[in-house]
């Protein structure tokens, strides 16, 4: 046959490109705008080194759980129980550390495993018994909260040993103190250097990727976009790194969070597991007929969520220096909202880690900014709700227009 393989191809213009990727750029722009807005209305408090540190400490667990939640939402499910898992694992860690005096190096892995077991317990009903995740995890939310009250006997437990608190309130020590050129302003040189190195690596990796795309004849995004995007990210990162370096340096949780974000970005974009989760969320029947063990995959997304929720639970307990049965109430909503603001689709198959992380930060900056402004929790909820609706409307509007 001599028919032409492709229909006429018009090279995508910058406009086309922008339109196709409006969601991602829109999200980044929204975050920057929201940050600037609160920077102004709080009279410059938002970007103070202390507050940036606070922001990270307050939001780390939302971000960490959003990583797991994104996978679950992409797979076409939902998990309402994470807030209760946070409370339960936090409580159990307290009992082991404080009451039973077990060493933290044993407690941390034990709690992570426990989170995995809790996730597995729910995943079993969802994946193999085909009970909707909404119902199973709603039950889980009630059950695990109840269990927490029972094991904690309705009382907070604390304080924790110092070594355990370091998990969430510690900072990476300044191993470069001897080379500090500005001892007056910079108090933790390592923070700044680490950020600079990371930014450098990111730009290098980006350029290398473009070069290899070029070599293999794959289209790149326009260079102007690449440069602009990298530029914005670099400026923001370096600014934040500098601010942190004038305070106590890099919080430990920031390091944990960054490593996890990188890991999950890799899993979702480059690994076969990630690809299969997206395919399963997009069309479960087709994925199954393609030889994907959809039950097992679903099961493991919930195990994974449980582990991440357990990690979050310990971070929260360590930060508050006490485990209470009320910990994590309503967190599931913040985590789910972060994913949807970040562009995940409620019907599955669509969503990105970067989106969920930015979504989590949008929620975090709003929480933090409104608290500084002295807005009550009532107004905070109202505003967050409206932002969620606006973000999802933006998605739907874009899709229909396209």
């Amino acid at each position, binding site marked *: *046959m*001599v*028919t*032409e*393989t*492709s*229909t*006429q*191809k*018009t090279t*995508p213009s910058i406009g*086309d490109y922008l*339109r*196709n990727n409006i969601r991602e750029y829109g999200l980044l722009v929204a975050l920057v705008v929201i940050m600037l807005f609160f920077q102004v209305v709080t009279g410059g408090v938002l970007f103070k080194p202390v507050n940036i540190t606070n922001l990270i400490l307050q939001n780390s667990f939302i971000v960490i759980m959003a990583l797991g939640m994104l996978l679950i939402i992409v797979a076409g499910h939902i998990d309402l129980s994470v807030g209760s898992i946070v409370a339960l694992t936090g409580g159990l860690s307290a009992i082991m550390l404080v009451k039973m005096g077990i060493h933290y190096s044993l407690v941390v892995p034990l709690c992570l495993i426990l989170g995995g077991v809790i996730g597995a317990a729910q995943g079993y009903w969802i994946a193999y018994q085909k009970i909707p995740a909404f119902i199973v995890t709603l039950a889980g939310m009630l059950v695990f909260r109840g269990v927490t009250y029972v094991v904690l006997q309705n009382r907070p437990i604390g304080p924790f040993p110092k070594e355990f608190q370091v998990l969430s309130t510690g900072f990476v020590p300044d191993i470069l103190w001897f080379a500090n050129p500005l001892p007056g302003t910079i108090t933790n040189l390592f923070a700044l250097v680490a950020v600079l190195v990371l930014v450098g690596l990111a730009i290098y990796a980006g350029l290398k990727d473009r070069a*290899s795309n070029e070599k*293999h004849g*794959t*289209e790149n995004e326009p260079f102007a976009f690449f440069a602009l995007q990298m530029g914005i990210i670099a400026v923001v990162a370096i600014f934040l790194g500098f601010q942190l370096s004038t305070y106590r340096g890099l919080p430990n949780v920031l390091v944990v969070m960054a490593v996890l974000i990188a890991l999950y970005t890799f899993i979702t974009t*480059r*690994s*076969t*597991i990630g*690809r*299969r989760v*997206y*395919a399963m969320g*997009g*069309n479960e*029947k*087709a*994925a*199954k*007929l*393609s*030889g*994907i*063990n959809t039950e097992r995959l679903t099961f493991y997304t919930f195990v994974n969520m449980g582990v991440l929720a357990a990690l979050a639970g310990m971070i929260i307990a360590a930060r508050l220096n006490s485990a209470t049965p009320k910990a994590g109430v309503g967190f599931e909503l913040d985590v789910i909202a972060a994913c949807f603001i970040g562009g995940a689709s409620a019907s599955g*198959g*669509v969503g990105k880690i970067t989106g969920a992380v930015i979504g989590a930060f949008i929620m975090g900056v709003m929480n933090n900014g409104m608290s500084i402004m002295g807005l009550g929790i009532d107004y905070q909820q109202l505003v967050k709700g409206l932002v969620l609706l606006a973000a999802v409307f933006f998605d739907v509007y874009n899709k229909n227009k*396209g």
Partner: protein
Amino acid sequence: MDNIILEMRGITKTFPGVKALDNVNLKVREGEIHALVGENGAGKSTLMKVLSGVYPAGSYDGEIHYDNQVRNFSTISDSEHLGIIIIHQELALVPLLSIAENIFLGNELATNGVIDWKQTFARTKELLDKVGLNEPPTARITDIGIGKQQLVEIAKALSKKVRLLILDEPTASLNETDSDALLKLLMEFRKQGMTSIIISHKLNEIKKVADKITIIRDGGTVETLDCHNEDISEDRIIKGMVGRDMEDRYPPREPKIGGMLLEVKNWNVFHQHHRDRQFLHDINFNVRAGEVVGIAGLMGAGRTETAMSIFGKSWGHKITGEVSMHGKPVDVSTIPRAIDAGLAYVTEDRKHLGLVLNNNIMHNTTLSNLEAVSSAGVIDNHKERTVATDYRSKLRIRSHSIYQEAVNLSGGNQQKVVLSKWLFTNPEVLILDEPTRGIDVGAKYEIYSIINQLAAEGKGILMISSEMPELLGTCDRIYVMNEGRIVAELSKAEASQESIMRAIMRSGEKH
């Protein structure tokens, strides 16, 4: 009769990166049956979506004149008000609702929101009589066959006072009897003065009913043929579609049949949902290396169910029997195991079972064999791209790139993506279920060529098809199925339309 009811002038429609329609013209006279033909992805469905307001005015260039007035439809209901009703390539019925409820969905016969069921049923009965469908108005859509569902769609169109009926591949999934009934109905409507536009890849049907044929190629109008002026042959239409003469519908092949590949023995399967009803009885068949084996039969004979039950037990329950490859029993109890055993199954339902529609061509192509483009669970982007690009050009998948989402491909090109996916698993036996449904003549030829090539490489092909000429043209051996049993096995010499039909009839009498 000489009244032009519709004229579309200079229609151009662009999707990001693709020009789907480029200055298309279409003129339809009142009371005629106008056929729209063209290769997969030529732009037929897109043109009809422009006409019916699925793509609103402003999203395309050009003019629509209907009843001698320029019309700018911004929604489907705008066009429906003027009697333009479209029945899409994919039926839009709600499976769990009754026929009556589906027909009046959105137009319920109600006063103050209270449905008048008596009138609804009476009207439904009337409409069903008109389309010749003998089913109670209360029957649920899931419980009637696809041919009848098609008739329900038409009844629904009639309920809306249709003047211009557009049918996008209405017979693609119908068997011959049902297709004939539908075409007769169209001719009946023509007598009553209704105008219709029909899109189809079945040229014999077009020839039977059409007054005019407009051919579209690569998003542009090629010509309009008047069937009353001259006798238009199928070859003439094909020439317009592909832009040159096509000698043969089936590529030539020298069968080189080798040793035994797939053998299925005493296969018994119970129904997936009605769990105590046995659906398949004592199925025995085999496929040798280098052989193309067909399974003929009417809709509902159990052909798809046979294939799916073998492929990882993905249909049915209480499955018993033995499957062997190369004379050795193999485990096909899960889909991954069936794939490992060397089987591949190309589904007949590409939208629901074949593709992840919101994933791109590349991701769909590699989905069943991700291991081959990854190491230690990490996907090698360049390898994956190379594979997808290869298949895209080998199978001539018409798209702007391998990154185009499957949902935006035309029906025929979607089929090729599903085929790519399974070819990439490098199976020993490829089971094809209606592989050319909704596919144009040129692409069919390409698919037959691929089949031949696979056979020449020593693979076995099992082909399920409702198009008898296709089975006769490609297969070395044909099994005939009816009511869950294999009722005949015909060699190439014995096989003919008559012998196949005779086998079906005879078995029907016995039970």
